[in-house]
């Protein structure tokens, strides 16, 4: 069984993902080790399947690089448990880079 997610990139981060701001993807509901898919799994999936260049600008130490704001359904992921948040069908996850200066 799979879940459909809407992924958006902002703040210049879209440049790493073929310059496409919006993506629709499908992920399995359960990971091979039996646990529900969470945002950390999503991050690694994006790195391995959608990222075109410079993975170190997106992922660092098993999470997103510092300076990337993540919103889950318009809410700060820090309020939803960060990488441990279990994604649901129809969720909208936004990755916004805040690193491109002032």
């Amino acid at each position: 069984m799979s879940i459909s997610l809407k992924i958006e990139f902002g703040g210049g981060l879209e440049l790493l993902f073929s310059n496409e701001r919006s993506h629709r993807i499908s992920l399995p509901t359960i990971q091979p080790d039996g646990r529900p898919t969470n945002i950390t799994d999503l991050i690694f999936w994006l790195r391995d399947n959608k990222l075109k260049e410079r993975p170190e600008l997106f992922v660092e130490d098993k999470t997103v690089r510092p300076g990337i704001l993540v919103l889950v359904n318009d809410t700060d992921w820090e309020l939803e448990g960060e990488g441990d948040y279990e994604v649901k069908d129809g969720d909208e996850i936004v990755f916004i880079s805040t690193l491109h200066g002032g």
Partner: protein
Amino acid sequence: MSDSCGNPATETEALMPRRRKFDKTKICVKCKTNPGSLIIRHAVYCKECFVPLTTHKFRRSLEPFVNAKPDGPRRTALKPQGNLLVGFSGGLGSTVLLDLVHRYYVVPDKALIQDDGGSHHPRHERVWKRVVVGYVEVCDAFPSMVERMSDVRAIMEGYGGFEFVPLRIQDAFDPCWWKKIGRDPVNLGVDMTDEALKLLRLEESTSPLEAMRSYMASLPTTTARSTALQTLTRVLLQYTAQANDCSHLVLGTSLTSLAVSLISGVAHGGGFHVREEMQEEWTADQSSDREVDVAKKATKRHGLRIIRPLRDVGMKECGAWSWWMGLKVVGRENWEWPGFKPGIGALTKAFIVGLEKDYPSTVSTIVRTCGKLSPKGIVEGKCISCERPIQSGIQDWQARISIRSRHNGDEQAPFEEVAESLSPFLCYPCRITLTSRSTRPILNPFPNSNHDVSLTPLPMWTGRVLHPPKTSGSEEGDAEIVVGRTLARSEMKNAVKEFLLQDE
């Protein structure tokens, strides 16, 4: 080698307990009703409360400084003395700044402006008659950076109501641009092979692009190049503001960026400019007892106030604002040159951004603490490179901390000398920018350019405050000119050889 402190009672694998990302509950701390959408330094805010919070921080940092006299206890109507220049880099902070300026001072956004009344309220009349946006394209300082001018222009057209002034980084070396803003150009260069930084008059044979690239290639370290680029950009904007009769220049430096610039500034010798890094008042005419060439369009009735209205707004808040307001961020590439090793600025940024992720309050503490600093020392003029105060006594201090010799200036310069040394006219960080040496060789990013380090062009504004020495017979012509330089190893040995013990 053991890293242990030797205390047998501690757990060897103990980790510092991670602080919760937010205090108390997930409900907004302001309205105490809505579920929170964003955590800002451990406090939870809903989207509805985040917007007025951000606009309040923006206005609090800007509006008290709009009038010539900063507001006292009784708030008066906003009446600036001139126009407003918004410095736009394409980055996140300046994108948010542009949006806030447009919503408040160009086409007031009724949805945004709370009904808090007052005669100073911007809805009553436009605060600034002209709002100019200055953008400095820096791609030509890099071998392979994409130009963003067309994207920036599209954003300006999307807004409407702004006057757009596009600039290129090489305008700093362009006599035509200098004439266009009402000043007389003098082409100066510096001998970067000599630590004394002999100042020379150049012939006008290089293009501004070549002159800029020659200047960047001559700089000794990555830190120096990044610092120089920031200085060129800022001073270009300052002179553009003055040429457009602006009384205020606003920059999109966020709280996070400000912490980075403060720490990295101190790290490369700019501690004396901590206050200027946060906010400064600038006038183009340097006070001097020499004659200065006054701008043809003299606008001495007011100076320029340089303000960073997003200084209390962190990068995360800027990111949330840009997303929720649907702003397009052009983006700003990292400043990297071939064979790039991170400079002080890049290393500081990595540190501060990492710190903000785990300890967000620390970043605001950095800025608040720096705001309390009051550097010691007397101001001795204005630096001709960065237009910031020169701390008195730095030449003497540098002479005391390094071995130097003196020479009497008998050597004939190949070109007309304007001054024996640029050093007395530079502040400490600018002097370090030009003279520091790296242990690692730094590549020339433009190997095909015709580049002579002994004749490095200088920005146009360095020429306006220096005057060539008068012809022979002048009152200055017979004065002894003393220039310091670092001794070679053999010279140092010769100076002390009579005191050395012989090897037996």
